[in-house]
């Protein structure tokens, strides 16, 4: 029995993600300081604050519109690597969302499209120590669970679990994409900031979507 995901659900998800990003902003920035340029927390916080402003002031009425506006806002407000990547994620989700509310399979399809957008844009492969290392496993887990007929809430919980594992697996990796790659071997031993923030995104989904 599938619970349809509508604008209110997506709004709750995005607000929740914005809150968590704001709370953990310094932590994300500190992770980026270790192997990057110390701005991932402020980048994501600035972007999600802008998304929340849209939700407050002029929320699009349908899921696809909401996802599209979210993506466009992130592209316009974040910059850096995370802006185009997160922006593309939501824009591609929007493109795959179709009209009206999303059933479980549609959610999984949209997330998969988002991931493909991130990969197309950033050309990262698994193991490159990027957000793909958390988002990829999350997406696989979501597909598997939804395909097995699990309720969306459970499927997203599995996805969040997979994201956490994928994020943790970035620690020993030597970065091959993004700013951390300039460090070479010195990038090993640190958790990737983008994998960390994207895990927060999946966890926020698990906490807000698919609950009747």
């Amino acid at each position, binding site marked *: 029995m599938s619970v349809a995901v509508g604008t209110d659900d997506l709004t709750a998800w995005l607000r929740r993600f914005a809150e968590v990003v704001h709370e953990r902003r*310094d932590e994300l*920035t500190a992770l980026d*300081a*270790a*192997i*990057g*340029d*110390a*701005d991932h*927390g*402020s*980048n994501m916080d*600035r972007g999600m604050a802008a998304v929340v402003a849209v939700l407050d002031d002029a929320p699009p009425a349908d899921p696809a519109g909401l996802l599209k506006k979210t993506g466009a806002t992130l*592209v*316009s*407000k*974040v*910059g*850096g*690597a*995370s*802006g*185009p*990547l997160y922006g593309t994620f939501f824009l591609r989700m929007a493109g795959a969302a179709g009209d009206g509310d999303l059933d479980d399979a549609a959610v999984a399809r949209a997330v998969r499209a988002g991931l493909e957008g991130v990969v197309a*844009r*950033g050309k990262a492969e698994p193991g490159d120590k990027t957000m793909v290392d958390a988002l990829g496993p999350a997406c696989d887990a979501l597909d598997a669970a939804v395909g097995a007929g699990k309720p969306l809430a459970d499927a997203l919980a599995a996805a969040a679990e997979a994201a956490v594992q994928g994020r943790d697996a970035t620690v020993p990796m030597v970065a*091959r*994409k*993004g*700013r951390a*790659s*300039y*460090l*070479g071997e*010195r990038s090993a031993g640190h958790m990737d900031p983008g994998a960390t923030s994207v895990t927060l995104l999946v966890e926020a989904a698990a906490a807000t979507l698919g609950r009747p």
Partner: protein
Amino acid sequence: MKKLINDPADVVSDALRGMALAHPELRVDHENRVVFRGDAPVRGKVGIVSGGGSGHEPMHGGFVGRGMLDAACAGEVFTSPVPDQMQAATAGVDGGAGVLHIVKNYTGDIMNFEMAAELVAAESGIEVATVVVDDDVAVTDSLYTAGRRGVGTTVLLEKIVGAAAEEGRPLAEVADLAKRVDDAGRSMGMALTSCTVPAAGTPTFELADDEMEIGIGIHGEPGRRRVKVAPAREVAEMLIEPILSDRMFTDGVICFVNGMGGTPLIELYVVYAEVAAILERSGIRIARSLVGPYMTSLEMAGCSVTLLQADDELLRLWDAPVVTPGLRWGA
């Protein structure tokens, strides 16, 4: 954090206000954070657009003006600008001859400029070419990574390519020249101290009193290795050696000793003297030089060295008039 700023969130817009007031010959689009030549678009001239994160001043806004850039997009500190900015810049400088985007090789810059170019292509008839600067020999060049960072060569490239555009050359030629300059330039940098990103509030990395980072970029990112502080003579060796190992340099180079923001000019001249001595020993003649803080990393103490293999054409373009806040001669 000790900085002459107001709210850390306003650093970029406050600095752009200051730039606009100090340089009435430029036009600043505060909404899009784009610095334009006052007379942009120049009809019939290829428009040269650059941009990147802020915190590297005078690059890029300080290089806008006759003979160099037509527009520069200012991102947040150390954060690539967003596609809207490049779109606005591109539209604002197009004089009918197309626009060259100068992009430093950072994932963020690449992707944002790429999206902007896609949008420009979709929404206007403006022809856009792109050059990616990737000259940092501290970073291993590999197909399987993000490749080399764009650092010091960017300044030299913007000057040279800006001069070529000013001569009225077509976009394809200007773009080819830009690639040639990128191919001809190599850089390597070091830091004595970290910098502090205003929004972060604490130094990006910690260095002991007797340590320095070799192979840093321009974003406060840690370098390739940490070593004990050494005299300028040895620092110059550490920077030049990997440059000379990476590319053949023959007679006549442009030698650029760049300050990272917190290092005063007196020290940059000390380093320049050592660099010049090494090049002399290596039989490489310096045809032109540039010494100063042109591509900074906030208040980081340190320097970088860039060598650009020149030829008569590049030198002629280097010597051509330039009228910008950051580089100015010949007019």
